[in-house]
């Protein structure tokens, strides 16, 4: 890990106050016990029967003395030192052996995995304290043997954890790539698997050290760990137990120390886990608001039109730390009733963000709508309250997403999910909703809908699942369906069927369709008008046929050229040099200028407005190709 990553991990760790508190407490304890030989304290084993069982705060003995007159403060410090060493060593041994077993089982899989993991299961079948007792009974009492016992008892925990992680990593493509690079299995384990498993091992250690210290103390408490006169926390507790009534301080003092150590270790461990977990780091656990945060200074003036949906100057930004990603940087869209509008663009061009912004579905944080309006029948959706917006979601405007396996709930039948979608917006009985659901499945041409309605999503093929997705989008007879790459994950033959279905449905029901895609072929077959997006802005919009035949914006022109079409034979493909710009540092002027062969000086200045081109088209370019229009 390099310095920067370490810094950010530490910053994350201390953002969790409790973890910071744990770290401070633990550091103090560790510093004190490390300094034990230097501290002006009595020898821990020095007996002085004359001064036995002195209370705390006696002169010369801050925490009092035990039944043999030994100084409790000194025994506490030395005992804590011993307990920490044993607990941490046991964790490291258990982690090393457990991780080795887990990696080997997970990596080799098959029979090796089966044999090893069944052995581990057997080890787990014994109650841990019984197993530890048995091990100590065989090896004989003693601190080192207790250490081994605690380590062995905890190996299964590590082995199972690490095996699970390894199975996931062993099937990643870079492991195959390493094999093809000529590496042997053991070398792959060492140099490819281990570095990726290491964070998990550290997390597992950090969350178990406290537990291990407790277990060692438990064995010592039973007299199987450290032997007199050597002090550790467990044996001090054991000795103090007999005097609990007469001299409670002899057991309370080590007890409080055990509590302090285990608490601080666990708080710190949780913090470490959160800081190392990549999902938490990316802020995935921040609960998104039900509506995207809206932070507009002004609402654009309403323009009178007969459009069903009118989007003006929509700005959706993602604010991550210092950076502002302008995912949608001023989008204007208009959809008429019954019209199909295609939005085409590459990944990161802002087409999905635009679609999600319409109903405030962009996750906030980090998403914010900074400007613009979304008017449905002339009413601004971004100004309405959550209840109104919620009643529109899924009823007047509904969505179809790319991967129905990810959007359908895996634990409910598709029938249950469709009934829920219907009853969410309409007060009908379950039975009526069921009848409606079956009709919908028929509409999307799912064979044998009565039987299929009881299926779970995983029991259906991708094409079938997407039909269910379409049926759910139709459930409440929407006026607009927004389809976000609904066929990208499907095979061509299935894609053709789904497109035909969508096309038929929209004509039958006079639906408006916003179809997001990166495929010009699909747009040409399905859409009346098309909007081309680049770096968060629409660069060209107009009737599909005209744009495909005579693109005016250089980006549209070049993008069409990039897409090979069937029937052209073997050929060199035209490419666009360079990469789309990052939307957190867009250049001045036209975002496409650095890649454009028509770019001139004025393209790199100020902001570009769209200009009308012909009767029904507009283009955001200073030097468009307009000959044909």
């Amino acid at each position, binding site marked *: 890990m390099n310095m920067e990553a370490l810094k950010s991990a530490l910053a994350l760790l201390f953002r969790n106050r409790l973890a910071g508190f744990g770290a401070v407490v633990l550091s103090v304890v560790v510093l004190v016990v490390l300094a034990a030989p230097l501290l002006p304290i009595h020898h821990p084993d020095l007996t002085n029967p004359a001064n036995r069982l002195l209370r705390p705060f006696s002169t010369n003995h801050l925490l009092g003395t035990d039944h043999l007159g030994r100084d409790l403060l000194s025994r506490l410090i030395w005992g804590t030192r011993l307990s920490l060493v044993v607990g941490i060593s046991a964790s490291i041994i258990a982690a090393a052996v457990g991780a080795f077993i887990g990696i080997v089982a997970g990596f080799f899989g098959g029979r090796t995995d089966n044999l090893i993991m069944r052995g581990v299961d057997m080890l787990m079948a014994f109650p841990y304290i019984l197993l530890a007792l048995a091990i100590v009974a065989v090896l004989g009492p003693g601190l080192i043997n207790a250490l081994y016992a605690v380590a062995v008892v905890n190996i299964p925990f590590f082995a199972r954890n690490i095996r699970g992680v390894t199975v996931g990593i062993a099937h990643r*493509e870079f492991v*195959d790539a390493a094999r*093809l690079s000529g590496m042997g299995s053991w070398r792959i384990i060492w140099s490819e698997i281990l570095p990726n498993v290491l964070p998990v091992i550290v997390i597992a250690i950090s969350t178990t050290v406290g537990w291990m210290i407790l277990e060692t103390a438990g064995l010592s408490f039973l007299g199987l760990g450290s032997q007199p006169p050597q002090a550790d926390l467990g044996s001090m507790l054991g000795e103090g137990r007999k005097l609990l009534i007469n001299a409670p301080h002899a057991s309370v003092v080590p007890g409080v120390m055990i509590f302090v150590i285990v608490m601080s270790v666990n708080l710190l461990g949780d913090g470490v886990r959160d800081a190392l977990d990549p999902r938490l780091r990316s802020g995935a656990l921040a609960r998104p608001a039900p509506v995207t945060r809206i932070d507009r200074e002004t609402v654009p003036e309403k323009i009178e039109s007969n459009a069903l949906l009118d989007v003006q100057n929509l700005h959706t930004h993602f604010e991550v730390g210092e950076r502002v990603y302008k995912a949608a940087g001023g989008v204007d869209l208009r959809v008429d009733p019954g019209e199909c509008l295609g939005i085409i663009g590459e990944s990161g061009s802002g087409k999905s963000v635009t679609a999600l912004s319409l109903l405030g579905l962009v996750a906030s944080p980090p998403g914010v709508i900074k400007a613009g309006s979304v008017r449905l029948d002339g009413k601004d959706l971004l100004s309405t309250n959550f209840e109104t917006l919620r009643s529109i979601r899924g009823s007047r405007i509904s969505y179809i997403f790319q991967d129905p396996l990810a959007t359908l709930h895996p634990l409910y039948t598709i029938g249950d999910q469709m009934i829920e979608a219907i009853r969410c917006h309409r007060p009908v009985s379950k039975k009526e909703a069921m009848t409606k659901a079956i009709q919908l499945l028929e509409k999307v*041409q799912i064979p044998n809908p009565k039987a299929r309605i009881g299926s779970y999503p995983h029991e259906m093929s991708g094409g079938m699942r997407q039909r269910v997705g379409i049926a759910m989008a139709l459930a409440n007879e929407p006026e607009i369906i927004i389809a976000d790459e609904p066929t990208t994950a499907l*095979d061509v033959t299935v894609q053709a069927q789904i497109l035909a279905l969508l096309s038929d449905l929209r004509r039958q029901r006079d639906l408006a369709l916003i179809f997001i895609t990166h495929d*010009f072929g699909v747009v040409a*077959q399905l859409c009346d008008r098309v909007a081309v997006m680049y770096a968060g802005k629409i660069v060209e919009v107009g009737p599909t046929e005209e744009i495909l035949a005579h693109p005016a914006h250089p980006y549209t022109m070049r993008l069409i050229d990039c897409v*090979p079409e*069937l029937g052209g034979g073997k050929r060199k*493909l035209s490419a666009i040099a360079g990469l789309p710009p990052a939307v957190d540092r867009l250049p001045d002027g036209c975002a496409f200028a650095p890649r454009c062969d028509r770019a001139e000086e004025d393209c790199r200045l100020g902001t570009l407005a769209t200009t009308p081109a012909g009767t029904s088209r507009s283009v955001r370019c200073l030097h468009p190709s307009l000959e044909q229009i």
Partner: protein
Amino acid sequence: MTPALDVQNLSKTFGGGTSFFGKAQPAVHAVRSTSFQVLKGETLGIVGESGCGKSTLARMLVGLLPPSEGKIVIKGQDLSGMVGNAAAFGRVIQYVFQDPISSLNPRKTVRQIMEAPLIHLMGMDAAARKARIDELFDAVNLRREFLDRYPHEFSGGQAQRIGIARALAASPQIIVLDEPVSALDVSVQAQVLNLLDELRTAFDLTYLFISHDLAVVEAVSDRIAVLYFGAVVEVGMADEVFANPRHPYTQLLASSAPAVGRPLMPATDGSAELPDPFNPPPGCAFADRCIRVQKECRGTVPQLGHDGLEHQSACFHPIENGRRER
């Protein structure tokens, strides 16, 4: 002329065998007896939809998966017995992965990733490795300063170039490209495809180009093999296979590809799905979806001819002169 790669009756069955108690286990025939040849310097395109066995086939060809039966002959040498000995495969045949980012270990620098094949396959010393890596990075148009960065710092197109450079490192004769551009944006896709074409000439390579995108396959391939349900159903010259398909499945594929200026096909009901892989039909796997199906199609499996170089189809009733309607 000896082919660069000669695949003979290659098949792969997953599962099967008997359980601990002697009960027969279900088996999936991922790749059914498949034979084809790839000539030196040519690009053979392999198309098929999900579940047709293209990835299984690719993994067998590079030695990542042991075949159940059949031979993989490269330059006259049968390699099918050497699976697990990645070095034997790695020096002659290499692989470019679909997902460029996940094929690079996130915890290694690009230099460490590039050095692996040079150390383990070529046994080069440090100076020779440095020279070779510089040469490879020039070949794929990447700047040398990228070498000390980690994979997550790269865009998909750049990461795929690194993947290609790694595949080239051990100077293989054949490269299996498994959907090398399907994770990339169209504007970047063409850059990578053109780079691959330049490299093929520069390093005298033979390609197997696997993809589900018919237009891309047609644009880069000399010949194309169409896979359906684990078997090659049609093979022929690239400009012939989709323009003049013989197998009804190829025709369905070609007419399904969305294209500017062609109307949508009429919506059919969704019954058209692959047969159950645990219980393959006794006859042609496409019979249930085929409009030309006749009695014999359901009884015996149609076979491809033996000489795999001409335009052939595994069909009892191939489409004669079936110019695709445009």
